[in-house]
């Protein structure tokens, strides 16, 4: 605390007598902190609290002896504590008005007694004892003189080594505590200083200007007048004479409130306070401070004038709004605080102060203002901007004026972004969007030279004829347009508007030049957005009709760049761009056109390529896919696919791949015989092309015929060989995807086995990104459906990595992995491995996965596991809480989950003991509740489960009681033989109970079952017949009973 007191606390400069602490918020905070430390000392460190100070802390107190109670010997003018040191001296001795205290315990108690006056006491104590640490611990510990922290530590260590009596240990502890407090205080005061509002000339000026607007005669105004004392303003914005500026003073104001005398106010960096007023002779000002320091002018005036404060609250609305507008943000405050930190030790140094002022002005220039409004010019968004702004204004009356308006602007911006439905990263851009226009206007010095050159060129673009424009465009093209500075510079000097404007002229050369630039700069996401805002897209779409091919090309390429986000794609579509772009593809057919093309022309193939490029960008929106199809794009794309130019093929295949997500397209792709060419291009050298082809096949191969086509055209071999190349992960993901989908067909799997693809796939199970893994595992899952392949996978050691993947979190991956593991488990030998790797437990724990797909898939995978595991019943029981978990899954909403869980229960219930357990967990009512369903898959598995569960206790009766029988009878009307079989078996089991037979008979089961007896399926026949015989036997028994 010593250091904090000497360095941070603000002592009055008064040279005489004891120095006192100035009344500043900082000092107050420091004293409070110390006080809290002392107060809590007795609780926190009871042992150290008894330590007796080397010298007493002594000061003049205002406390009355009568305030002391028990534990003290109180007389008229003296108080002695009953607590004494080893020499019998009291630890607290008060002899009015002097008080001496010698332990923290007594200090704490004294503060407790002082109650409301404790702050004053603490202050008096600190003021009287300028070096408390030395007094408490002795001069050896005087850490104020330590040049740095290390010396303190070393001195402490020295002490430790010298003597090791218990007292010095306590001393040490206290010293450390005090040191900690000291650090805390320093940090705290820093925080405090940075929180403190530092005024600068700008903010003061704004305040005064604003108040001037609300001053004058009349009731409504807040002040009668407010004036500067000096008309001269220095270049740094201050009006105080230079020798006063050194003190941080900015200016002096004469304020005449309605209800008080003229106030002479000093505005300084520290705050605002009343000064001595104007001295009569020659208008000099008495600079001495006469009152408290307020944080700003308004606060001071509110304090001094009631009418001001009253009228202010009426004007508050207007005023704060104005303040926010005029004083865009207080960012410099922070800056000042930072500089202040550095100047904390030499705060009085005039040099420093001036730097502070200078810097704060510099930063003020850089600060963002509300000018962003100019940067958005599309009407639509402007309106929304205004609306939001109005709303904000309405809503923020309560908010303190310190809410930064740049933050507000961002908020508005963001909400606009939301309206625009922008998908790509926008938050980071919006910031830049705001700041850039400001750079243009204010922070001139920081701009790169390119900025000025570009600005000049844009000037020539605006004011030049065709020739000058072309020269300027060509010159602009020479800048590094891939660089963001240049891109933004073009926008910020208003170049985008001009460039787009040029597109609407008749000058072909200017249009070409302009598009060449737009094409380059539209790689920047911000510029794209600006182009759309400025209405550039419709113009470009119109150019697509132009007879000049190079123009068409450039326009299409630019559209391809711009249409990277949703709103842009919509604009292209709404203006008929898709149809026109599709028409560009058509150019490709006149490949043998005469070479009499004019000067600025390019080849038709190029036009088609650009068209495809633009379509590729556009095809990311669903509606655009539809438009492309309706415009007849698919046959054209199919034709272009027959060319052999990679440049052309990539966008074409890219578009197809994008569109193949739609069912319509997949059908068309099949019909147009596109697969053949996709397969052909898999053999290309170009990795990107291979990737897109594989991706397109992946999308299309959901369809069985397509899978066959891929095989027939020999696509499986290149796919299998591409699997071995693992460097390009994107391509690998696409290829494995294609392999996965293709392997859904058995014939394809056979082929893949021939090409040794399965071994390769197993090799890909480790060290691959998730996108690849999902596909690889998916493919293996398909392959595993065949016995032969399962053996291959086991022999290649594929089971271990598969089981390892069960601990992942990727949903798609888990679905595929569980499927693959489940398929492997069909093989008893593989099952042993899975069991050894604890795979069943992992599968079981996936039943807790939040995604229903994963749950269902895990449950399906468990079925073969339970079937094939040795001692399955024991294994299932070993999972603590496992059975309960499974039974509870019957409460799921998802049909697939339900069906899969039923299947699991069927397998579990094969073990009598387990069946007993799940019965106890209430499986019967849960199953009965599910009975009313139309889902055939669920019906089948549910019926199977019910027939299994009937094997235990009185479950048959229970099913009847829970009304599961009648719905089951209705299952017999289903069209699915599997359902019939399962249901007949379930009914056969249930019919062992008489009541159930009655229910069945009532629901017309007999007729349905009679039909089933005629089925070719023997199991079904048997079950149906058994059921009928049970019903019949019951009827006979009743008859017999009646007549006997």
């Amino acid at each position: 605390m010593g250091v904090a007191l000497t360095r941070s606390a603000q002592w009055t400069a008064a040279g005489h007598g004891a120095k006192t602490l100035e009344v500043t918020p900082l000092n107050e905070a420091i004293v409070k902190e110390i006080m809290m430390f002392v107060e809590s000392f007795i609780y926190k460190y009871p042992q150290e609290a008894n330590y007796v100070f080397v010298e007493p802390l002594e000061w003049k107190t205002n406390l009355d002896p009568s305030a002391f109670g028990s534990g003290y010997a109180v007389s008229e003018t003296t108080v002695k504590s009953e607590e004494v040191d080893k020499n019998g001296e009291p630890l607290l001795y008060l002899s009015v008005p002097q008080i001496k205290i010698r332990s923290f315990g007594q200090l704490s108690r004294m503060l407790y007694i002082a109650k409301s006056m404790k702050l004053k006491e603490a202050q008096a104590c600190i003021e009287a004892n300028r070096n408390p640490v030395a007094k408490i611990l002795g001069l050896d510990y005087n850490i104020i003189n330590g040049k740095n922290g290390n010396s303190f530590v070393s001195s402490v260590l020295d002490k430790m080594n010298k003597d090791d009596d218990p007292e010095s240990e306590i001393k040490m502890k206290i010293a450390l505590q005090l040191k900690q407090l000291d650090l805390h205080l320093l940090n705290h005061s820093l925080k405090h200083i940075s929180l403190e509002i530092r005024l600068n000339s700008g903010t003061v000026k704004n305040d005064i200007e604003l108040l001037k607007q609300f001053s004058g005669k009349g009731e409504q105004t807040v002040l009668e007048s407010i004036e500067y004392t000096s008309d001269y303003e220095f270049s740094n914005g201050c009006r105080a004479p230079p020798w006063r500026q050194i003190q941080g003073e900015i200016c002096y104001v004469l304020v005449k409130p309605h209800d008080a005398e003229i106030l002479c106010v000093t505005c300084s960096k520290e705050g605002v306070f009343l000064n001595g007023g104007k001295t009569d002779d020659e208008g000099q000002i008495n600079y001495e401070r006469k009152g408290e320091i307020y944080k700003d002018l308004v606060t001071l005036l509110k304090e001094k004038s009631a009418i001001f404060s009253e009228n202010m609250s009426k004007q508050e609305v207007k005023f704060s709004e104005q303040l926010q507008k005029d004083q865009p943000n207080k960012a410099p405050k922070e800056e000042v605080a930072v500089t202040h930190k550095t100047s904390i030790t030499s705060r009085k140094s005039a040099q420093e102060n001036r730097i502070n002022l200078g810097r704060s002005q510099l930063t003020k220039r850089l600060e963002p203002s509300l000018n962003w409004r100019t940067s958005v010019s599309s009407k639509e968004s402007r309106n929304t901007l205004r609306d939001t702004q109005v709303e904000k204004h309405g809503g923020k009356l309560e908010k303190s004026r310190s809410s930064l308006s740049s933050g507000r602007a961002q908020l508005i911006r963001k909400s606009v972004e939301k309206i625009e439905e922008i998908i790509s990263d926008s938050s980071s851009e919006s910031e830049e969007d705001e700041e850039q226009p400001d750079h243009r206007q204010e922070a001139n010095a920081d701009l790169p030279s390119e900025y000025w050159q570009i600005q000049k060129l844009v000037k020539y673009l605006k004011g030049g004829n065709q020739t000058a424009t072309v020269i300027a465009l060509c010159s602009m093209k020479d800048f590094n347009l891939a660089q963001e500075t240049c891109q933004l510079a073009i926008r910020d000097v208003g170049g985008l508007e001009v460039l787009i404007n040029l597109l609407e002229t008749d000058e072909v050369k200017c249009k070409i030049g302009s598009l060449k630039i737009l094409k380059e700069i539209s790689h920047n996401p911000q510029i794209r957005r600006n182009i759309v805002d400025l209405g550039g897209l419709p113009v470009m779409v119109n150019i697509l009709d132009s007879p000049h091919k190079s123009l068409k090309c450039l326009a299409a390429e630019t559209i391809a760049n711009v249409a990277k986000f949703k709103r842009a794609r919509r604009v292209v579509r709404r203006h008929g761009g898709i149809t026109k772009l599709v028409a560009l593809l058509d150019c490709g057919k006149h490949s043998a056109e005469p070479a009499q093309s004019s000067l600025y022309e390019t080849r038709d193939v190029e036009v088609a390529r650009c068209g495809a490029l633009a379509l590729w960008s556009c095809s990311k929106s669903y509606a655009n896919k539809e438009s492309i199809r309706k415009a007849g794009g698919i046959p054209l794309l199919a034709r272009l696919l027959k060319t052999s130019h990679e440049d052309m093929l990539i966008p074409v295949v890219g578009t197809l791949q994008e569109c193949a997500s739609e069912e319509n397209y997949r059908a068309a792709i099949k019909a147009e015989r596109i697969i053949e060419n996709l397969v052909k291009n898999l053999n290309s050298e170009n990795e990107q092309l291979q990737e897109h082809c594989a991706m397109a096949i992946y999308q299309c191969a959901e369809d069985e015929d397509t899978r066959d086509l891929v095989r027939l055209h020999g696509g499986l071999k290149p796919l299998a060989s591409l699997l071995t190349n693992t460097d390009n992960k994107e391509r690998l993901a696409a290829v494995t995807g294609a392999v996965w989908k293709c392997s859904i067909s058995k014939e394809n799997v056979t082929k893949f086995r021939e090409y040794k693809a399965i071994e390769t796939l197993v090799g890909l199970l480790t060290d691959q990104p998730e996108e690849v893994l999902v596909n690889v595992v998916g493919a293996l899952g398909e392959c595993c459906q065949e016995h032969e392949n399962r053996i291959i996978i086991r022999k290649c050691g594929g089971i271990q990595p598969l089981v390892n993947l069960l601990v992942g979190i990727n949903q798609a991956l888990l679905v595929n992995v569980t499927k693959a593991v489940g398929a492997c488990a069909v093989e008893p030998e593989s099952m042993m491995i899975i069991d050894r790797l604890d795979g069943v437990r992992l599968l079981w724990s996936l039943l807790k996965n939040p995604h229903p797909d994963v749950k269902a898939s895990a449950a399906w995978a468990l079925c073969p596991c339970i079937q094939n595991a040795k001692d399955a019943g024991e294994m299932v029981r070993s999972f603590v809480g496992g059975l309960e978990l499974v039974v509870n899954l019957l409460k799921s909403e998802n049909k697939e989950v339900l069906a899969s869980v039923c299947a699991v229960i069927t397998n579990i219930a094969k073990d009598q003991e387990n069946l007993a357990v799940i019965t106890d967990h209430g499986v019967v009512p849960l199953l009965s509740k599910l009975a009313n369903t139309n889902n055939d898959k669920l019906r089948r598995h549910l019926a199977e489960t019910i027939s299994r569960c009937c094997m235990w206790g009185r479950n048959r009766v229970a099913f009847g009681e829970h009304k599961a029988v009648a719905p089951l009878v209705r299952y017999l009307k289903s069209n699915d033989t599997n359902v019939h079989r399962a249901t007949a078996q379930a009914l056969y089991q249930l019919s062992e109970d008489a009541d159930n037979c009655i229910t069945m008979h009532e629901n017309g089961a007999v007729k349905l079952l009679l039909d089933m007896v005629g089925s070719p399926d023997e199991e079904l026949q048997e079950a149906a017949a058994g059921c009928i015989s049970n019903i019949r036997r019951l009827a006979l028994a009743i008859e017999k009973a009646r007549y006997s």
Partner: protein
Amino acid sequence: MNRKKLQKLTDSLNKNCKHFSKFEVKCLINLFYNLVGEVMERQGVVIGLDRNAFRNILHMTFGMTDDMIMDRVFRGFDKDNDGCISVTEWVYGLSVFLRGTLEEKMKFFQGFQDEIVNLLFPGLLFVDCFEVFDLNGDSFISKEEMFHMLKNSLLKQPSEEDPDEGIKDLVEITLKKMDHDHDGKLSFADYEQAVREETLLLEAFGPCLPDPKSQKEFEAQVFKDPNEFSEV
């Protein structure tokens, strides 16, 4: 002119002109005689379009406005420098003017270097786009020439102190862009390199070729009906 002669002329011109079909050559010859009018009948007099008539065509048909450039284009057509454009010069000139490849246009008319053309025009002047711009014919486009050609290209801003400053600056920009050997003027090599890099610079100092639109119109008009001309 009788048909036989016309046929012969057409054949000879067509042989050496790869950009026009025979029919198109015929059309152009017909157009030429239409434009020249009655003068053609007189024997012994050089028949052709004089400077004014030609400039009139450039202005009316191709929308050119710059006197100086039009003058230079006339010189480009007028290979033998006799102050009037003959029918041969007309057809060859137009062939480049309308259909020339980039190289040909760059070297306005230089594309016909084959022997026959050389035979036809012994003192063939290689005037090209470059030479259109090379006002004083010293095979360099100097700063002054550029300034001269660009002086009307910028809108005069009343606020600016020196109205020529912008033009000077523009000249500097152009030089920076095109002057590859940094000698402060444009040689043909500079020009050629710059145009190859950026085709737009072909007409860097003013339009001296027909713009695509008027070119289309012209062609459509001249080559419209095959029958109409075959009878003449």
